[in-house]
């Protein structure tokens, strides 16, 4: 197959679900064998957008995913920097530590942490859910930032320091701008993983924290197809917007985005 055809087929596979969601969300009286809906109606979708439960879930998802991204960048940056710019005993071990959560299922970690978080009073709190989301998120942020530190030239920092820049100045005016694409991609990746998380939020949120994936699961067991489609659209819209904003960084090897299954 030619390269172009492959790109187009992959694009199509991505667009079909979005089109299907749009059709199901806005179709009215679309009963089985009909190929095309009788009429279109944005009523259900708009009612969904105005639904207090949905708004609350959207807000909580947004707070959690944004908080997790910031926390992961703040924690992951120094770790990735040390891991990639220095060689020391135990480096492999630390890498192994960050690798573990990428293969151990979140059902297992979530079940184990359920009681711990209840005891600590963190279950059912936004902070508790953010903390537990760090388990799947932090490793990817460290790996993504790490692979761009691997081709980072520290001489620029030294030059600035020699010329009298303070450590803060070096950080904000030299390191951050040089690593910006990678920081942005790592932040978006963190947001995405947290936003999509269901099992960990369910086990730690304890019914008090409701996020969008939980509404989607509830709708899926209810079986109302237009509701499923509306929720799916609302669920993926922020992700597509975010990715559209950083798309030019994504295809470039320099950002070192670590893909995830």
């Amino acid at each position, binding site marked *: 197959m030619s390269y172009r055809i492959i790109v187009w087929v992959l694009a199509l596979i991505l667009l079909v679900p979005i089109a299907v969601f749009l059709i199901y969300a806005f179709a009215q009286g679309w009963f089985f064998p009909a190929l095309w809906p009788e009429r279109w109606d944005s009523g259900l979708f708009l009612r969904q957008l105005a639904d207090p439960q949905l708004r609350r879930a959207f807000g909580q998802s947004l707070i959690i995913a944004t908080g997790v991204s910031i926390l992961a960048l703040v924690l*992951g940056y120094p770790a990735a920097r040390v891991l990639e710019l220095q060689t020391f005993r135990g480096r492999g071990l630390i890498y192994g530590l960050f690798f573990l959560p990428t293969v151990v299922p979140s059902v297992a970690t979530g079940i184990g942490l*359920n009681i711990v978080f209840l005891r600590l009073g963190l279950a059912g709190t936004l902070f508790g859910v953010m903390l537990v989301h760090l388990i799947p998120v932090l490793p990817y942020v460290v790996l993504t930032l790490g692979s761009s530190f691997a081709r980072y030239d520290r001489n620029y920092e030294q030059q600035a320091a020699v010329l009298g820049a303070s450590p803060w100045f070096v950080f904000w005016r030299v390191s951050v701008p040089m690593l910006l694409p990678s920081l942005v991609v790592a932040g978006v990746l963190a947001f995405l993983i947290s936003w999509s998380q269901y099992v960990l939020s369910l086990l730690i949120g304890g019914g008090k924290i409701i996020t969008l994936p939980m509404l989607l699961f509830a709708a899926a067991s209810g079986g109302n197809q237009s509701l499923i489609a509306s929720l799916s659209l609302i669920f993926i819209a922020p992700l597509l917007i975010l990715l559209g904003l950083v798309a030019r960084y994504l295809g470039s090897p320099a950002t070192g985005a670590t893909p995830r299954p």
Partner: protein
Amino acid sequence: MAKWRRWLGLAPASIIIIGLFGGSLGYGIAQSLGWLPFLGQRQLSLAAYRNVLAGEQLGGQWWQALLFSLWVSLAATLGSALICLGLLSSIAERQQQYRGLSTISNLHLAIPHSVWAMALLLVLSQSGIFARIGFGLGWLDQPSDFPVLVRDRWGIGIIMAYITKEVPFLLLIGLATLRQQGREYLLVAQSLGANRWQRVRLVLWPLLAPSLIGGSLLVLSFIFGAYEVPALVGVRYPEMLATMALELFLNPDLHARAEGMAVSLLMSLIILVVIGLAWRWRRAEQQS
């Protein structure tokens, strides 16, 4: 740089992972051994493991779920890897950076598995888009003529959801390898007179093998333990290990928690053993 500053950089992230992971493991093992203080039960025993592996009711369920999880994860991983290898083989000799393919694959990764599963349900169910088209073309007389492709007992829906989701992931990994080192070797082989098939088989595949095998292992362990997709497009019977573990854990009968914990720990153990063996095998390969 001073030693303490190195550890200062590593400490916050490591402490969080060690704390959460260690806490989870510790409490998980304790509960699986029957330490359920909220029920006033502090006697440690292997009863949960006995029930899960050989119990009258759960034993059968465990082995069934293990087999089903193995089937789904192996079929989906193998399918994704083969498709990815085929696609890469057909485009490896293009002289370019594959930016378009990388971008579109990255966009695929952005769609959450749960949403992807929902799309599959709307397209492939017996009253879905494909069934409507089949009906419109006169191929079907009623919804039940359309094959059960999602929420089916063979896990076809789960496998299809994963294959379509994991091919872009493996493509990204393969493309990274191709960009780094692929072209020169292929050009050398070509100038030495290797034909296309020889170049693909003797140069490209060995080149891609380490990264694709590594990526496939990540896919395998992810699918083996993931909950969302089987919960959404699977059936209650046969079920996968992750759904069995979570259902036991959320069971109103709190005694079932020990068993849910045992299932999830055994499941994690299987994954870690497979990854560990693969890692040792690769190290042995590298040394020889």
